[in-house]
């Protein structure tokens, strides 16, 4: 579902991603690395928010450089960036309807999809509340809900559990595991935390814009673990 070949991204002359080769199918995959290792840039490229400087990207079997194929990818994509904001005057329902409309969902399916995605993150009771009245953790849950509102085939989550309490984190793990049965979920985090061990099948570790490791979590542990790959900050 995700395939990159010799993917390079330069920003202001600096090489942020350097010859990244990835092949990820259905399942939940971890993208690990210290701050500034290029995780968010890689997610932006995979989310079609940014283009590669060199190399090739194929998403869901389609080429994002071709307009018609890019449109098809975007219809099947869910994306939660590390930093995002909500329109303060929107209610949670308005916002999720907006997110569903943005993803070209048929009008007749939007109401049901909005309620299902709100239920998945435990926001059913808050659907009528304005987003400006929500706490940081609840805003993060709205962010997760908008990313899954279209039941995406490709779900990209950048530090999704920041601000979630333990109960919500457990609920999030259930949601991601369920989606991972049929979809490709890429979960980015800068910590080798419970999120990874609870839900991910394999991990890719980025260090300095290069893939330092790709394999199962057991293989990562055998190789000395995350700390052995990542130099101390």
């Amino acid at each position: 579902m995700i395939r990159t070949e010799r993917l390079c991204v330069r920003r202001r002359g600096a090489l942020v991603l350097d010859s990244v080769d990835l092949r990820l199918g259905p399942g939940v995959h971890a993208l690990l690395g210290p701050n500034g290792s290029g995780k968010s840039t890689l997610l932006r490229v995979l989310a079609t928010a940014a283009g590669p400087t060199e190399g090739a990207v194929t998403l869901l079997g389609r080429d994002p450089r071709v307009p018609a194929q890019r449109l098809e990818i975007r219809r099947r994509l869910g994306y939660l960036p590390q930093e995002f904001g909500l329109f303060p005057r929107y209610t949670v329902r308005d916002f999720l309807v907006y997110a569903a409309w943005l993803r070209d969902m048929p009008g007749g399916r939007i109401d049901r999809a909005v309620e299902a995605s709100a239920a998945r993150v435990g926001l059913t009771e808050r659907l009528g509340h304005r987003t400006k009245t929500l706490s940081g953790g609840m805003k993060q849950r709205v962010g997760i809900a908008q990313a899954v509102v279209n039941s995406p085939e490709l779900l990209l989550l950048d530090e999704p559990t920041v601000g979630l309490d333990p109960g919500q984190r457990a609920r999030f793990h259930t949601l991601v595991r369920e989606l991972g049965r049929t979809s490709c979920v890429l979960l980015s985090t800068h910590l080798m935390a419970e999120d990874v061990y609870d839900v991910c099948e394999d991990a890719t570790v980025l260090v300095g814009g290069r893939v330092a490791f790709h394999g199962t979590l057991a293989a990562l542990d055998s190789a000395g673990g995350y700390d052995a790959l990542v130099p101390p900050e």
Partner: protein
Amino acid sequence: MTEHHIPPAPATLRAAGAHLPAGWVCAYALGRLAEDRRDDAEDHLLRCAHCADAVDDAVRRGPYGARLDDLHRSLMDRVSGVPHPRPAPAPSSSARRPVPPPWLSATQGLRLSWLAAVACVCGLGVLFGRLSESPAPRLTLLLLAPVLPVLCVAGSYGGRADPFAEVTRTTPAGGLRILLLRTAQILVVCVPLLTGAAALMPRDGLPSYTSASWLLPCLTVTLATLLLSSYLGSWAAALTTGVGWLTLMYVLAEPLLGQPAAAGSDDRVVHVLEGIQLKLLDVVGTTVFALVSAVLAELLVLRRHDFSRLGAR
């Protein structure tokens, strides 16, 4: 519906744009479609969202709809870990509130501060016009009117003004479609405001054009901004167009600055402003605006994919 009443499938079912006959949809939803047709129907349903929706609707209207809803609810309970409240009985059609179309949710982000700024410009224009009893404020407002909406679009949604832009640009509707929708929303608000303000301001008996005459230049400037935003992003495009419009005003005003005021008007400013307006809105000016608008609209259609390209701003 019995099998012999079901019409045959069109021979071009596999062709792009073909849909399942209504009879097939109903029969499939009720599990009564003949086995030899089922494979064709399922093959088509996997590729056609329109027909999949039609089957979905037919199932929900059918005898199993309520049971499916119950199943969906209990599944959601298990997924979310929270009991999902049973829905209240559907209200009668007279009590049911109209549901706004989903695209309307895209227009709620308009910043009130920008709307208030345009309203202030109009209000101050009317106030100055009334106090000075001169047509100069009205002419100035009309000359600036084409760039006010595009600045309002940029200020309300451009750059970092849209907190959700990072996700919006990764969606199918996040390109030209949402830009056109937001521009239309701003125009729907700004054009009546500007027209109303101009109507309330004194004309002093000058043979002025009506406020409606300015709609064509307004359209041209808006189209130019939209087109430029596919290259530069909305803020830079609005500023470029704004500066370009003011430069055009200056170029048109320059030959008039050295001339004596026209007979019947002692006010040099009014003379210059009116001269600019006459040049912009005479037959030649209007024709030029119409032609340029047509060209810009065509270019906008040609560049529509650039609004959603990788890395678009």
